[in-house]
């Protein structure tokens, strides 16, 4: 099973990054989604629902932004810890 890291840096790619992450889970892929440098901008119903589906399907969510951990259930990781995770990924998808 391929291990894929979806790395989202820009707010404009937040939703697309989540959709891509969800899609990858359909193909026996281990998905880790990283939201970097910013708090989720538009936590609307669609984003929240898709985030819950990601969790149910076994995807993992990480962020170096404390607010995403406190408000939205992301696992907080420092940039150092994120670097370690990315090193272990088979494929890195910066979006």
């Amino acid at each position, binding site marked *: 099973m391929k291990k894929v890291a979806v790395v989202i*840096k820009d707010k404009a790619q937040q939703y697309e990054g989540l959709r891509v992450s969800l899609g990858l889970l359909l193909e026996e892929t281990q998905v880790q989604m990283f939201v970097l*440098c910013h708090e989720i901008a538009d936590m609307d119903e669609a984003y929240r629902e898709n985030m819950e589906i990601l969790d149910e399907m076994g995807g993992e969510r990480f962020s170096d932004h404390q607010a995403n951990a406190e408000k939205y259930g992301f696992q907080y990781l420092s940039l150092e810890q994120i*670097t370690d995770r*990315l*090193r272990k990924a088979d494929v890195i998808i*910066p979006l």
Partner: protein
Amino acid sequence: MKVLHLLKSEPCDLVEKFAERLFDKEETSVRKLYEKNVDWGAVADEIFSHDKVICWW
């Protein structure tokens, strides 16, 4: 393991950190796609001659 970093634009601090810290320098190549006169044939060759390719922002 040979790793190729493809840079689509001038790297921000974050990309520079990742490119420096993710893998040993000896096994890492960097190709700046935003520069003039990119040899795309060479880029295609490099993509397949490296074990891992990361196409940064």
